[in-house]
């Protein structure tokens, strides 16, 4: 039994079958198959939810290693682990009010917004560095970028509306064309990649190396 379960071939067969049971009913209108594919997707989502235990286990083990070794700054890991436990206790009490809500609004949402909005600093310093007319490509990048930036500043439009058609031309043609090109390129790449996975050629993604028997 264990030999069968260990076999990479069985794993591949299960993978391919699950793929087909989700993929095919999308095209072929047979209610039984469609229902089955929906169930399978839900089952996969439940399996995924269970793996949370593995992730948290590993997180605690890592944190414990730091604390146990008394590595520099171990106190931060101890604090991290405490906060997990604390929040779980809060959640048992209530998930719509009280301390749980406080943590949501005082810690989670501000920190999430920071890491999102901090991108403007990174974009600005990247732009200032990359937009230098070193060669033809960089020059084009610079010209279009500059036009669109100038147009986007809301004040520009009110006093320099002549720029508007050029910027709109760039954003409604080149930008959307690049989006299309990107999607077409990725899609063919993805399907070919998918096929290699199904043919058992991309075994590396299962963690199996060729040398493994």
């Amino acid at each position, binding site marked *: 039994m264990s030999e069968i379960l260990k076999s990479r071939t069985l794993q591949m067969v299960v993978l391919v079958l699950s793929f087909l049971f989700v993929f095919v009913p*999308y*095209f*072929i*209108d047979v209610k039984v198959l469609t229902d089955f594919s929906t169930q399978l997707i839900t089952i*996969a989502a439940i*399996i*995924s*939810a269970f*793996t*949370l235990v*593995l*992730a*948290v286990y*590993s*997180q605690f*083990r*890592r944190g414990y*290693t730091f604390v146990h070794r008394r590595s520099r700054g171990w106190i931060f890991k101890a604090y991290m682990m405490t906060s997990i436990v604390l929040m779980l206790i809060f959640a048992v009490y209530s998930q719509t009010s009280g301390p749980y809500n406080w943590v949501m609004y005082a810690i*989670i949402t501000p*920190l*999430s917004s920071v*890491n*999102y909005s901090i*991108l403007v600093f*990174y*974009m600005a*310093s*990247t*732009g200032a*560095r*990359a*937009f230098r007319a070193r060669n033809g490509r960089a020059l084009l*990048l610079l010209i279009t970028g500059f036009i669109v930036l100038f147009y986007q500043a809301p004040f520009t439009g009110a006093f320099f509306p002549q720029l508007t058609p050029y910027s709109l031309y760039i954003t409604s043609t080149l930008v959307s064309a*690049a*989006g299309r*090109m*990107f*999607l*077409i*390129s*990725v899609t*063919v*790449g*993805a*399907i*070919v*990649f*998918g*096929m*290699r996975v199904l*043919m058992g*050629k*991309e075994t*590396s*993604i*299962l*963690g*199996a*190396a060729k040398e*493994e028997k």
Partner: protein
Amino acid sequence: MVNPLFQVPGIVSGRALGLIFDVVLMLLVVYYMGGGKNIKIRRVPGLDAIEEAVGRAAEMGKPVVASFGIAGSGFDYWTMAGLAILAHVAKLSAKTGTRLIVPTGGSDQSLIVRPVAEEIVRNAYLIEGRPEAFSDNDLPFLSGQQYAYTGGYIGILQRMRPASVIMTGSHASEAMNIAETSNMIGAITITAGSYVSNTASLACASDYILIGEEAPAAGAYLSQDPTQRASIRAQDIYKAISIIMIIGGLIILAAGSDVVIRLLVS
């Protein structure tokens, strides 16, 4: 809505052509992987640079940080492509005895991807005969929240100052945080953007960038197996088909018929 040009009984309306294109592409892959076809592939600098990046880390005695994305939809093709690249990085790291850090997490759906990534890295070290060099602690789980993951990732980069950062797979907006921090600490930065606006920004911030299909094709490109590399030919054929369809469609539409558009929604 445009009326479809044709319908196939038993096939959901509007999905027949998609199915045909899928099946034909799959058959093409099978054909090209049948072996015996010697196909030359243009160099992809971003993929060639991976070896250099790991090599530099080994020389400097510093770690490599590689990630497969936040896997917002679980095992989609971006994540899978990221895992394929991770497998390659893990192999190189294990071979050169370089420490590999793989930040994980970032979404609820990424939970199931984590054990797979762990197995990939563990096996890479096992095969190179250095199982003791692998530690589960080198795949820190940084919660299922996208930006907590980002904060943790950046913290790791700033404290550890790795020699190279190889960030591929299903990264979303946090990719720029990581790429710019990586640039700031002077690491070689290899990235792949999973959508076009991300790619444009990353192209400005990274040393090397994988654009579009270069990431999904990485597994085949990096394997020295000629049959796998031959499958990339199928991608080119489909791009040629798309160009032909666009040109044909434009001419036929200009001539006053929307037959190609109706064909495309069939």
